[in-house]
Structure formats: structure tokens, C-alpha cells
């Protein structure tokens, strides 16, 4: 059993890493997609924004698909509960995501202002809605989700409604998620562009990082004083995989108790704040690459602040707290975990190597996107 709980921890970590990788790669695509209609006033300027992420958006978005696949494989019960419970929210994410591949691929195919403006806003929607709704979903996880299981068949029943998802805290976490994506997108744009687009990206980076810091603190205080966190009283007892028999206690500020137990994990929220402060500061002094790295650190900190605060909970149930889904009772069996973790351990370095190769080929000689370049290479770009 000891070995199994290690595997469960590694499974939790793998999902966390995949979410982080999506947030830092897909994150700047989504950010750039949201910013394109504002940072770009003309078609050329918008094309500058779009072409900074153009050649790599697809690979980056695969991290989102991989997160979905890993949820399915590592936490099948969470995958089933979250996707069917948050039904229309998930479909909203999906329908919005539809707009992205076609916006990138179809926008440049026809040279008409109406056509291109349409796809600009499609890309905006396809980037905004998933960021917002994923943030709202996280807020709901923090509040607890109304669901229960049938005791014999373990069939899942969602007891809430779609509009019930939009409570105050989830709305704030939704906005926070959008701000994070915009910050990261700005940090990427200031790294890859020149001229007017660069100036505007620096400005949005400053504002969005300030919003990120402010909302991060607001949510932190909210969790300490205004939200009942969940506490697991029987840390992996006898029936490790049984979702019905947890002893769970609700306590205001409960989500922050992990930080009292393990001081070192405070590194996560510190990274979130410091990274956000540094990114706009460094960008002002034109240290663009370092500014982008700081934004990555901030995103890393944010994802793990969320995960570590809730640990071991993944999807707490507000209607039947004892049936909450945790890293202990939602995980796959030993053999499946072995297979996936082995695959992830082998593949992650390989993916880093070839993704690095692709980025080096595309941007290696300090290349930047500018209005001039978009005009020159018009037929070879998005």
C-alpha cells in the first residue's frame, strides 16, 4: 500500500505538471488570442500578434488535450464527474475551443476585412471563454461541488445547476484566470515583437500583472476568512479506493491549513507573487526574455498554490462531503498508473527536446515579428 500511495502522489504531480505546461504554453496562445483585437488596430498589426503564436498554437493546445487524457487515465472518476457534472460549462469550453483551429487556419485564406474581423473575434471568444470557464470551475472546486454517488452502482449524480456555478468566488477566480492568461500572453508578445505591438504589449503586461497580484491576494484572504475548506480526517485509511467512506470536516480557512503543516510549500504562492511583480518590472528595463521567464514562474506558482491548498482533495462534494473525490480514492489502479507514469517520464524529456528544436528553428536568430515582416512575407504567414 505504501508503494501505491507513492504512485498516487506521482499521478497527482503528473496532472499538475501537465496543467502547468498547458498554462505556460497554451496560456500565451490564449492570452495573445484575447489581446489580438485590442493590441492590433490594423490587419497587419493583428497578423503580427497572430503570427507570434501561429506556428506553435497547435502543439501548445495539445497540452490541454493531454490534461484531459491524463485526467481520464489517472483520475477516471474525476474526469467523469467533472465533465458530466459541469455539463454545459464544459461544452461551453469545447464550443469556444472549436473556434481556435479554424480562426488560425482560415483567417488568412481570404483577404476581406469582414472575413478577417469575424475570425479575429472568433479567436478572441475561443481564447476568452475557456480561460474564464476553467477559472470558474476551479472556483467551484474550492467551494465544493454538489454531487453524490449511488451506493451500490457508484453512479454519479450532479445535484446543482449550470447557473449555480456562477457564484461570487468562482467569478473572481474566472477573472483571475483570464488575467493570468493575458499577463502571460503579453509577456510572450513583448518577447517576440517589435514596434507598436511591442509598446502595447508592455502596457498590457503591466496592467494585467497588477490585476493578477491583486486578485491573487483577494482570493487568498477570501479562502482564509470567507470559505469553508475541506479537511480529510482519515488520510488513506483501510479502504483506500472507496469514494464513499471518507471522514471529512469543513472549517473556515481550511484550505490554508496545509501551509501550517508543511512550511516549505509557501514557496508556491511566493513564486506566484514575485514572478508577477518581476515580469512587468523586467520588461520595463527591456529584459524581455527574463520578463517572460518571470511570467512562467508566476504561472507555475499559481497552479501549484491551487493544487497544494486543496491537496489531497480534487473535487470535494458539498452535498455529501464523505463522498468527496481525493487523490487517494479517485486514482487508477497500480498497473495503469505504472504505465502512464513510465510513459510520461520517458516522453516529457523527448517532447522538450523536439519542441525546443522547433522553437529554435522558428525564433532562433533573435527573430521578431513586426508589421514590416508581415507585409513582406504576406503569403507565407497566417
Amino acid at each position: 500500500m505504501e508503494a501505491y500511495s507513492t504512485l498516487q502522489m506521482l499521478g497527482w504531480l503528473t496532472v499538475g505538471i501537465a496543467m502547468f505546461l498547458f498554462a505556460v504554453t497554451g496560456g500565451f496562445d490564449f492570452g495573445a488570442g484575447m489581446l489580438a483585437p485590442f493590441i492590433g488596430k490594423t490587419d497587419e498589426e493583428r497578423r503580427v500578434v497572430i503570427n507570434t503564436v501561429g506556428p506553435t498554437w497547435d502543439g501548445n493546445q495539445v497540452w490541454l488535450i493531454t490534461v484531459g487524457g491524463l485526467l481520464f487515465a489517472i483520475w477516471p472518476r474525476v474526469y467523469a464527474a467533472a465533465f458530466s457534472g459541469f455539463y454545459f460549462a464544459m461544452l461551453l469550453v469545447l464550443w469556444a475551443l472549436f473556434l481556435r483551429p479554424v480562426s488560425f487556419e482560415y483567417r488568412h485564406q481570404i483577404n476581406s476585412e469582414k472575413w478577417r474581423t469575424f475570425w479575429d473575434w472568433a479567436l478572441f471568444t475561443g481564447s476568452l471563454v475557456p480561460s474564464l470557464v476553467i477559472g470558474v470551475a476551479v472556483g467551484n472546486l474550492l467551494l465544493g461541488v454538489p454531487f453524490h454517488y449511488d451506493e451500490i452502482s457508484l453512479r454519479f449524480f450532479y445535484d446543482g445547476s449550470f447557473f449555480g456555478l456562477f457564484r461570487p468566488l468562482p467569478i473572481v477566480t474566472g477573472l483571475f484566470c483570464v488575467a493570468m492568461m493575458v499577463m502571460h500572453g503579453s509577456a510572450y508578445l513583448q518577447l517576440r515583437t517589435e514596434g507598436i505591438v511591442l509598446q502595447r504589449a508592455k502596457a498590457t503586461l503591466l496592467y494585467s500583472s497588477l490585476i493578477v497580484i491583486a486578485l491573487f491576494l483577494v482570493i487568498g484572504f477570501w479562502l482564509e476568512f470567507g470559505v469553508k475548506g475541506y479537511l480529510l480526517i482519515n488520510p488513506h485509511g483501510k479502504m483506500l479506493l472507496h469514494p464513499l467512506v471518507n471522514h471529512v470536516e469543513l472549517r473556515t480557512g481550511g484550505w490554508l491549513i496545509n501551509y501550517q503543516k508543511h512550511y516549505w510549500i509557501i514557496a508556491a504562492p511566493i513564486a506566484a507573487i514575485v514572478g508577477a511583480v518581476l515580469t512587468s518590472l523586467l520588461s520595463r528595463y527591456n529584459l524581455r526574455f527574463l520578463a517572460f521567464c518571470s511570467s512562467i514562474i508566476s504561472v507555475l506558482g499559481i497552479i501549484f498554490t491551487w493544487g497544494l491548498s486543496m491537496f489531497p482533495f480534487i473535487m470535494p462534494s458539498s452535498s455529501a462531503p464523505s463522498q468527496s473525490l481525493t487523490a487517494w480514492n479517485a486514482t487508477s489502479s497500480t498497473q495503469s498508473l505504472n504505465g502512464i507514469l513510465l510513459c510520461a517520464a520517458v516522453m516529457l524529456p523527448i517532447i522538450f527536446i523536439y519542441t525546443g528544436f522547433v522553437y529554435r528553428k522558428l525564433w532562433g536568430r533573435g527573430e521578431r515579428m513586426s508589421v514590416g515582416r508581415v507585409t513582406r512575407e504576406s503569403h507565407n504567414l497566417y
Partner: protein
Amino acid sequence: MLPDPSSVMLARIQFGAAASFHFLFVPLTLGLAWVMLTMEIAHVRTGREIYKDMVRFWGKLFGINFAMGVLTGLTLEFQFGTNWAYYSQYVGDIFGTPLAIEGLVAFMLESTFLGLFFFGWNKLSKYQHLFATFCLAFGSSLSALFILIANGYMQHPVGSAFNFETMRMETISLLPIFFSRIGQIGFAHTILAGLVTGCVFVLGISSYYIVKKQDLDFAKRSFAIAAGVGIVASFIVMVMGDQNGLIVNEDQHAKLAAMEAEWETQTPPASFNLIAFPSQSEERNLFAIKIPAVLGLLVTHSTDTAIPGIKEIIKTNEARIRRGMTAYKLLVDMRENGATPRTVAAFNEYKDDLGYGLLLKRYTDNVVDATQAQIIKASKDTIPNVAVIYWSFRVMVGFALIMFFMFIYAFLGVIKKTIWEKTWFFRLAVYSIPIPFITCIFGWFVTEHGRQPWTISGVLPTTLSSSSLSVSDLALSLFVFVAFYTALFITELYLMFKYARRGPSSLHLGKYHFETSRGNE
């Protein structure tokens, strides 16, 4: 506590429609990538620019198609969770593994190199770009491998066992799951079908230019490559189809019997129903033209192996349903009153038939109190709709043969240089572009509808697999899907037609038909 039957029906319609729609784009992605790689190899070996232009032009159409493949594939990954939650938690332990690995191993590779394929022409050496194209083609095919492995588990589950404490199937060993024969053969069959699709697509569009007398050199070279790859692919796809048949015969008796409308078990070698009008209610063919011995030879490759007929399968399954009732009774007892070594031992003896017991849930929620009539009904449910499967299968095979003969004619014509005057053939080739897509859909329909009434054969009935959603939830989501897909499909076809008509002139290289002879941008 069964989901509402009409909500299950809506979930099935939604999944069937979404999967079929997805598979309008996937085969072209799979096949065209390898055709483009062939063209690029020609470019690298001969150094001729025209082959590079070919890769770039077909790549443009590839990109328009690829975007749709990506977004429709996303739907499927969501739908397992949104609409089939009970399925996902019941077999996610096994089914999720190949899906997660697919993302990490295959889809990532394909998608990362997609950008380099499009935007790397001026940034990479010839060989580096060839490598990028190879990764794109290899990655997309590898994707198909993992999806087919996951699908293979649904057709014939292996390497797993039911755990009564967690109420789900759990992996015993990953090896048999990943090396399942049905997954491997299904993969080869699918990839080759994709290749045939890609070849018919290139052949058809090139024929259009030949008919219109635009960019003839470009068109003839594309035509020749498509004909050469196509003749090989369309032959091997049938060989793989035959291999697939052998495995279906061994592991999925009900599906095979339905595909061939075999009601009675015949003394081997069984005769073949060339044409039949099956009647499910009367359990016989109202009309049939038979060829002696052919079926036995086809699906067993022997003269002395019997092929179980539908009536025999129903009998066998009736016995399994009765054992399944015992399994279910023991399961409920263990979950309500706790397990004892005695009940566990008893349950283990019956648990392989638990899925058959669950078939009765449709008729009685308690399962154990099923009447004789209900058991008979449930055992007849284990046979998919014979007429539909029988005819879908024949449509697939018929079209596959037509395409094979087309490629023979085109290939021989290219070799003998006689094809270029055969205008009728080029016209025909343009209109045959939809054929491979239809063939693929019918092939999948046989596979998936032929698996009914199960989502996981013998383990989990479809009626239990869906989420606990209301009919209105599913109706609304179905409506939005249809609206979205229709709008996107129209846009995609519009662009596809626009650029296919325009041809390589759309690359703006200044040397093709619309740029030189008429010069109208």
C-alpha cells in the same frame, strides 16, 4: 437507477454523429500526410522545384482539413466524460491509458511539427524539412494506433478484471491491451483506408486540372504519384480487411454473424450469402443468394472450422445471462453487507458474466427477479441489427473494390502513358472523391454498431454507460453541435473548393495557370 432510455438514445446519436463527422477529416489527414511525404522525397532526391510546389499546395488543402480534424477530435475527448460518465469511470482505468499516451507520444509530435511544416520552408534545410514532414505523418499515424488500441478494448476486452470494491474494470496487465490483435489489425486497416482516401483525393483533384487543362505538368505528376501509392494501398487495405475478418470471427461472434446474415450454424465450410434480406423478428433471411463453401474459406481460411450462427449465439448468451444474474446477486450482497471470503470466491466464479446480467437492467432494475420472457428478450438483444450491419458491410466492400479497380486502371494507364487521353476517366475520378469517405464511415458503422448492445463487449451494456443527464440537456447540446458543425463544414467546404479549383496558383509563386495565362489575381 438507470438513465432514461431516450437520453441514452440521444447520447448515442450525438456520439455516432460526432464520431462520423470526425472521421470525414481524419482519413484525409492520415493519408495525405504520407502522400505529401512521398512528393517531398521526390523533391529531395531530384531537386526539382515542382515537387516542392506539390507538397506546398497539397499541404494547403491538408491544413484546411486538419483544422476540422483537430476540433472534431476534441469533441470526442470531451464526450466520453460529458455524455458517458458511467462508462468513463467504469473502464477509464484501462480505456484512458492509451488516450493519455496518445496525447504524449503521438498527437504532440504531429502538432508540434505541423507549424514547422507550414512555416519552416525558409528556415530549414531540405532534409530538416523532410524530417518535419515525416514527423507530421508519423505522428498522425501513431495517433491512430493508440485510438485503435483503445477501440480494440471496446470490441474485445483483454488484460483487465472487475473490482467489486471500486465498481470498475481495472488493468491486470497492459501488454495484452496494447498488443491486442484487433487493435493492431484495426490500426493497419484504418491507416491504409486513410492512404486510399488521400490518394483518391489527390487523384480526383488532379483530374480536375487535367480536364480543365490547367497546370498540366503539376497535375500529371500528382496524378501519377497518387495512382502509384493508391494501387498498393487499395490492395493492402483489402488484405487487412480480410485479416480483420478472421479476428472478428474468433472474438466477436455476434458481429460476424450479423455481417454475414448467418442465422444457423452450418456444417463447415459454410456457404456465403452474396445477397440476403435478413429479418430480425423471424430470425431468417427472407431471400438469399448463396455460394457454397465461400464464407468458411473467407473468414476461417479453412474447410473444417464451424462459424457459430445467430441462433446458437443467442442460446449461449442466454446461459451467460443466467450466470450473470447470480454474479449480480452476489455483487449487491457484497456491497450491502460487506464481503466475506466465501462470497468473494463465489463472485469470482461468476464475475466474467456480470456484464450479461447487467443486460437485464433494461427490463428490471433488480436483475435477479427477471422473468423467463425478460431473459429471452435480453439474450436476443445481444445480436445487433442484422440487416443494417449486413448491408453496411457490403457497401464498404463494394466501394473498396471499385476504388481498387480505379487505381489499377489509372496506374496501368500511367505506366503505358495511355491514360492522358482518357477524358472520361478524369471526369469519373473527380466525381469519385466522396467514395473513400463514404466507405470509411460505413466501415466504422459496421464496427461500432456491430458491437451493440455493448459499449465494452460482454462487460458493460450501452444502456448503463451514459451520464445521468436529462433529455433536454442532451437535446440542447445536440442542437448546438449540429448548428456549429454545419456552419463550420460549410466554411471548410467553401475554402476547400476555392483552393482546389484555383490549384497551385494559390501559392503566389507567379508561375502557375491563373498567374501567367490570364494573370487575374
